[in-house]
């Protein structure tokens, strides 16, 4: 409970809705200029890195809840748990100081992407019948045509799409941390200070 309390000071509570808005606005910008990445978890990972695993998890969970209740992307709520784990992982990587170094940030993205792929595949398979109604379904179809079952095909699709997306996201987070003034970063205790 102590770590829970420490994560949530007023600055963090104010940052979470802003981070959710960043998730949504940047995610839609990525769609608008047709980048083949989701880039819809930059805010979640920023909060996790700066304010700790609990705050990151909460940001991810509520973010997906809002995608659903605002009607932008109804299936999102089914993946709220995955988003929460992505945020929690960001807290752990932040505490270890990884997002301060560019290659460690990319490594953190790779690990996050692989974990996200593995835990979202069963949801895609058993809740959505193995499809997401988007372009990634072509990858699922290809994986199934070479003989993978539904779960295997969804894991294959996830390991193809997710690590790339999360590595790009962590790279953006690394650049944002560079650009933020130290006075702002000093407000948060989770991220190990840059040496």
């Amino acid at each position, binding site marked *: 409970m102590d770590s829970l309390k420490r994560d*949530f000071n*007023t*600055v963090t*509570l*104010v*940052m*979470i*809705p*802003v981070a*959710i*808005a*960043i998730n*949504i*606005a*940047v995610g*839609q*910008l*990525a769609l*608008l*200029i*047709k*980048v*083949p990445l989701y880039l819809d978890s*930059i805010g979640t990972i*920023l909060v996790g890195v700066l304010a700790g695993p609990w705050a990151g998890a*909460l940001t991810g969970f*509520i*973010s997906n*809840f*809002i995608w*659903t*209740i*605002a*009607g932008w992307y*109804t*299936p999102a*709520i089914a993946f709220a748990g995955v988003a929460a784990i992505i945020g929690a992982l960001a807290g752990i990587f932040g505490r270890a100081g990884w997002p301060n170094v560019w290659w460690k940030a990319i490594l953190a993205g790779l690990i996050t992407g692989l974990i996200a792929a593995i835990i979202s595949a069963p949801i895609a398979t058993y*809740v*959505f*019948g*193995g*499809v*997401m*109604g*988007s372009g990634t*379904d072509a990858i*699922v*179809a290809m994986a*199934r*045509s070479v003989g993978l079952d*539904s779960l295997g095909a969804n894991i294959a699709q996830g390991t193809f799409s997710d690590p790339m997306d999360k590595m790009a996201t962590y790279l*953006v987070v690394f*650049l*944002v941390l560079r*650009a*933020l003034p130290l006075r*702002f970063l000093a*407000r948060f205790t989770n991220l190990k200070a840059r040496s």
Partner: protein
Amino acid sequence: MSEPVRRPSAIEALHPLTKLALMLAAVVAGAALPTIPAVLGVFVLLLVPLAVAGGCLRPFLRTCLRVLTPFLISLLLIQGFFTPGPTVLLRLGPFRYTLEGLLVGLLFSARLLVGMGAATLLMLVTRPDALMRGLVERGLPNQIAYIVITALQIVPTFQARARSILDAQRSRGLETEGPLTVRLRAFAPLVGPLILSSLMQIEERAIALEARAFNRPGRRTSLVALHDTRAQGLLRWALLAAALALVAARLVLWRTA
């Protein structure tokens, strides 16, 4: 986001937790019932009448159709071609389209229709602030309600800011169209200003909230007043019992489905 300002319909006037319970029961029923007609029955006999009573049948059906269509297409193709079964309906090169696959695809589609329909209907007939108020009265921390409501309020301004940054950078000659490398390079001057400018406002907001005793412990009054009745309380318990019964039936009676 729906913002009902006219006189509330019979459904809108219900306590938000009653509406939440109705939708959750529909989702559970859609996931637990074993056959396509039974699952579609939940949609036709529960969700559609609720949408009629809520006066939002048109937007409800339109949104359901828009959300479901891409799933339906993918499900019918992928499940149809890759589910093994004895009844082959169609051969296409090395692939066979089976009746069994078609039925699996239709069952998943029906379940998604109920699940996403329930979420859509809930948001059409419930104001988010009333829903959050209802949950806070049952013990959800105030801070969570603050996060949800604030996020819903500021997202539109963020979308507008993203658009204006896009326009501003384009007018300075930033290439946002063309090959992938060009579009990726365009991303930094778009996302950077958006993220940094919004983060810099956080401190001011935090000070403003603390000056208004945001973290003070104790009871607060709310601008949103909710109306609850005994009958609705009973209905919520009945819905909970029905949902549990369906889950039990699914685990015991319909194990193969």
